[in-house]
């Protein structure tokens, strides 16, 4: 873990994304604040629909055209404001500075092009060179993600590879240009558990080699504990709690985080029914005046339903923030 006072690798301040539909406006990303340092893995945790993927897509400015847009805030990569870059400047950031690993290995490779072709495409855009060199570098990238017989695989089409292999190829595309940040959007959701574990170990190793920062988006608190240094917990478009993994696991400040941790199945310890969180998040079109988690919260009182809780320092040292009246009200 690196805690330096220098400019963080990625710094997000007051980021707000607005979606306008006929039903009204809502904010899948509502006032996000977080930072990512080199060599660090930041876990972004939350249920489906909490705005995790929207957060990821807003960082590379690839929100769905027309429907969604960033309305305010700042995204700084090594101090450089990404939101004020021109479209062509932003294209150079994508793939070279910030790479992404998408959710579904079955569909995230283009079936019409060879694996090598899809890796060298990124290289050609960001670090051009003669064809043979590019091919060598594509093979090298495949070797780094531990694809067996990379010299052979480089000429394969995605349909000739297994799911785990394809996700490795997606990883190879991501690391090929040596990015500073990799955003991994639930990269292991559709993989077998064993393949999943291998893939996560691989990500960790790559990070140790290159010192890149990883933003790991997941709904699985179990993965977070193994992989991440710090965590951001999202609920209904808001960050409800953030801090180091140790701190949050030891002493979750927000009842939602507490409930998520309790819902992770354990190998040891007490048997019995798995804990779940009753209810579901409010529909996006309804913006409740108070804490959005209040209707599902066992500890909610009347203030929770009427006033939005402020983000406060839970432990008094700036390492652990939470938005909950239970913490703020004391």
């Amino acid at each position: 873990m690196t805690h330096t006072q220098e400019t963080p690798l990625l710094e997000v301040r007051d980021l707000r994304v607005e979606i306008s539909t006929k039903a009204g406006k809502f904010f899948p990303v509502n006032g996000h604040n977080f930072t990512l340092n080199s060599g660090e893995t930041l876990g972004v945790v939350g249920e489906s629909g909490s705005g995790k993927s929207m957060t990821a897509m807003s960082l590379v400015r690839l929100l769905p055209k027309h429907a969604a847009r960033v309305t305010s805030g700042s995204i700084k990569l090594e101090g450089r404001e990404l939101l004020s870059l021109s479209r062509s400047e932003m294209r150079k950031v994508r793939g070279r500075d910030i790479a992404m690993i998408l959710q579904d290995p079955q569909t995230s490779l283009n079936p019409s092009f060879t694996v090598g072709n899809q890796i060298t495409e990124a290289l050609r855009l960001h670090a051009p060179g003669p064809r043979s060199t590019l091919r060598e570098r594509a093979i090298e990238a495949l070797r780094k993600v531990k694809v067996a017989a990379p010299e052979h695989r480089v000429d394969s089409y995605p349909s000739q590879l297994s799911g785990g292999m394809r996700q490795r190829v997606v990883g190879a595309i991501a690391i090929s240009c040596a990015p500073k940040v990799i955003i991994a959007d639930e990269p292991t959701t559709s993989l077998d558990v064993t393949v999943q574990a291998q893939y996560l170990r691989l990500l960790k190793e790559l990070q140790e080699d290159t010192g890149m920062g990883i933003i790991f988006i997941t709904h699985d608190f179990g993965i977070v504990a193994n992989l991440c240094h710090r965590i951001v917990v999202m609920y209904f478009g808001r960050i409800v709690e953030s801090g180091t993994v140790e701190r949050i696991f030891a002493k979750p400040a927000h009842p939602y985080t507490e409930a998520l941790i309790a819902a992770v199945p354990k190998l040891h310890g007490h048997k019995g029914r798995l804990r779940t969180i009753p209810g579901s998040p409010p529909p996006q079109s309804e913006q409740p005046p108070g804490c959005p988690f209040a209707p599902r919260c066992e500890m909610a009182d009347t203030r929770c339903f009427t006033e939005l809780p402020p983000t406060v320092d839970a432990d008094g040292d700036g390492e652990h923030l939470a938005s909950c009246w239970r913490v703020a009200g004391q």
Partner: protein
Amino acid sequence: MLKYLSRRIASSLFALLVITFIVFLLTQLSGSPVDALLPDDATQEQIDSFIREWGLDKPLWQQYLTFLGNAAQGDFGTSLKWPGQDAMGFVLDRMPATLELGGLAILMSVVIALPLGVAAAVYKGGSIDNGAQIFALVGQSMPSFWLGIILIWVFSVWLGWLPTSGMGSFSHAILPAIAIAWFQISALARLTRSAMLEVLDVEYIKLARVKGVSEWSVVWKHALRNAAVVPLTYFGILAASILTGSVVIETVFSWPGMGWVAIEAIRGRDFPVVQAVIIAYAVIYMISNLVVDLLYVVVDPRVRHG
């Protein structure tokens, strides 16, 4: 891949065989050639010798085999309407004219429809999309012969820019080609649009953008390459139906191609020529579909390696 292609060729040949059988049967249904060829006052002796000479006394399957054997050598007999002309030779003489007009119409269709369909998908709901929809609606609801007449009226009679009919310079081909192509542009553009819309939503398009690929390349390389299978499938039908379906337009514009021959031969009950035209059309149909099968191999690696 070789297996794929040989299977395609084999099934084409089988289809051709079935067509010859149908053509033979239809000829049988249309009455005895005796009535058509001999004068009404022919003697029984003349009729008997005619039947023997033409092999009409043999069983039907033997007649079919004879027909098939001759057809395989391109021999469909001599024309009745245009005496002394070899039926197939006469049809083939007219083929270049049909290919010229059809080729121009095919070229027009593809060159206009593909970009139009792609642009309509990319700017979905925008003015290009709406314009394309109206263009397609008009094209698909107008019968081509009517469109042909309107085109002649506007551009030849009223404006006087282009010749009304006949074949000669390139300008003669423009109006009939438009009349044929408009419907096909509509169909092809709509198919391209829906195929593109589907592909543009897939994750690999997102991944291409994430890699920093330009929007142009995302659309024309990553998306179109995958969407192309749908318009390509239609292209086989398009090419074939333009080449064989120009019958009406060739008549409207007095274009001396195979379609015009077909109409004239049917009017004159010229069976050898009608048979030759049908078989020629069938072969054109088959070849264009074979070309499409070959193009699949080029476009889709899963066919190549599957």
